[in-house]
């Protein structure tokens, strides 16, 4: 919606905040590793920095309601969830915290109204009719 300010749902703010935490952690850890202050190899440090930069970009994009950041989050979580689900099913070694965070992010960003807010779907496609139960309608 060019020229029109889109309202950011609270769930998006929460997801962006989570991504900022991940970015801060990954960047700090990565920089320390690259600087030789940890036990991890250099490649791991570089990977952490790349992950941190990606998370930071996704968070900033989400705060500014950019459609590409939604796609980035979804792709990231598809990879994360596939990884965790396969670890659970075949290797009995899942990281439940990661799994829970990934699940939360997907369920927070998936509702139609969130996709509309990101400009990924158009309002005219929304089905607003939902069944209600009202005592006046009974009998």
């Amino acid at each position, binding site marked *: 919606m060019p020229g029109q300010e889109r309202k950011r749902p609270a769930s998006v703010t929460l997801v962006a905040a989570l991504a900022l935490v991940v970015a801060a952690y990954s960047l700090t850890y990565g920089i320390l590793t690259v600087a030789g202050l940890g036990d991890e190899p250099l490649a791991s440090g570089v990977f952490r920095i790349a992950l941190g930069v990606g998370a930071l970009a996704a968070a900033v994009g989400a705060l500014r309601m950019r*459609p590409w950041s939604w*796609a980035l989050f979804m792709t990231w979580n598809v990879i994360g969830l*596939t990884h*965790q689900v396969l670890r659970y099913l*075949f290797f009995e070694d*899942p990281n439940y915290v990661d*799994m829970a965070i990934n699940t939360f992010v*997907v*369920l927070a960003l998936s509702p139609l109204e969130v996709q509309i807010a990101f400009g990924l779907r158009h309002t005219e496609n929304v089905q607003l009719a939902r069944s209600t139960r009202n005592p006046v309608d009974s009998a």
Partner: protein
Amino acid sequence: MSSSPDRHAIPSTAPDLELLRAFEPVVRFTAGEQFFPMDVERYVRACSLWQYHPDDHDEQVVAEGELTMEKLVEPRPARFGSVLYMRFVHPLSIEESARALTDHQRLKREQTHRFRAGLGRLARGGLLPRLIDALFSATLLLRGRVPKATAAAAVLEYAGMQQSEERYVYHGRVVRQSGWTVCQYWFFYAGNNWRSGFHGVNDHESDWELVNVYLYEQGGRLVPEWVAYASHDFHGADLRRRWDDGGDLTLEGSHPVVYAGAGSHASYFAAGEYQAEVPLPVPGRVRQGLDVLARFWRRTLGQVGEGRGPVRAPFIDFARGDGLSVGPGQEREWTPDVISEATPWVSGYRGLWGLYAQDPISGENAPGGPMYNRDGTPRASWFDPLGFAELDRLPPPPVESGLLAAEAGALMRRQRELDEETPKRASGLQQIGIRLESMEGSPHLAAQHGKLEAEVAALAIEVKALRRERTENEAVLEGVLRRLRRLTAGRRDDPRAHIRQAARPVPAAEMRFGRAAELWAAFSLSLMLVGVVVLIEVAPADAWAGAIVLLIVLVLGESILRATFVRTVNRVAVILALVATTILLLHFWQHVLVGVLVALAAFLVLQRVRELRA
């Protein structure tokens, strides 16, 4: 091209043939079509007649070259489970089959209008539709089917007939029912080669298609009002269009234009390429389960539902209208043949009009005649042409105003009766109610009290029903009067108001696939299977995990080519999130239960505190 129906009216005294000729359709075929509507007699003369017996053997009843229209309708008693059928193409030897296929290829090359499928058949569906396509092809190995060489031989045989005498024939019938006059145009084809000729669903010897034109009488003239085409996947009211519906119906003068599917000969109102739906025969319980899942997907997860069924095969019915056109003022004209129940072959032959391929789902078995289904039972479109297009519930327009006025009068009379009856019953109810109230506190009247209570309850239901009827009648009457006023003022309904689901060609935008997408669509399924084989060979312990990753990568990769990445990544993510949620609930069910109970307790405390503070 829209047109006033009155302009096309003809005198109601016109004989049947004149009536049929006045509204005979123009049929536009797709380039590459190899069968055109023909007369049944030439076909029958070229056939042999066979009987399939329930002990699984076929017996030739009349040999090829000896079958006549008289012999066709001779009574032939047979056991239950036997099937009488014609064979247009006699059983072929290997050499004959090879020759038929070669000659057919040569004939195709010589055709003026040649068929090109173009890009996109496989790429129009995702992985699932392509999997269905592959499974469907595999089932043909197990099912009875018409061999490709037989279809090719039928094409050659028909081409030979046309070469000796080129004729385009429809079998027309005029039937009068409930104030309507229906012109039925039955088109008979020597074969349906949709599968072998145009990548479609089935092949069968012979084919029958139908177009109905519905007329009403006004001032001694017959006026066309509706036209209905037989089509795949559609029924009832969806088959018909109003004569003045310029948006959907094309008219050439007083002749409706039909776009015939290549090989399938299904009739469409607009030129284009139509994707076939394949409804799976799932049991009711499974269907209910799928509905619950669909509701959960839409309402609980807030996802967009699929407008079309999830199970779509990439079968295309090509009704491009870029080939031969047959009809008044076209490249070729019709030769009409008037039929009725009195026509011997129509009512006297209950068998199949071509090879009985013993296909259990009937897709490859030849059809029955215009009057009968494959099993010999009467065909609804013959004995109930109004019901065929759900016109049985509509009176012809000149009668409608009178019927509406009569209906309004009846409703008004009933309202007056209710106005008199309801107060009387209501008053009676009050009287008994008072008596009942007066009995309170008198234990010795318990028996009478109980009896009266039942009486009051019954009377209350009666009064409620009367009041409900009055209110409902009021609403119906309002609608009837509104419609009557509209008709009196000469305003008509929206010509498309009756359509629930219309056949629409696949939009051009969905067909713009690059060569890469097309290649991907052709090979991805095989690629996936090869990938699974490699995984089993190289890393058997991780084969399942690898196969899942491979599937997700293929699905997402394809979505990029099909420009549906956002929708697909969302679906994959939600499905994975649901799996993860289940895992988390299974693993941490005690923590989840404790959390839910604590939250519930906190909520209740909060509610009570609010009440106390209010």
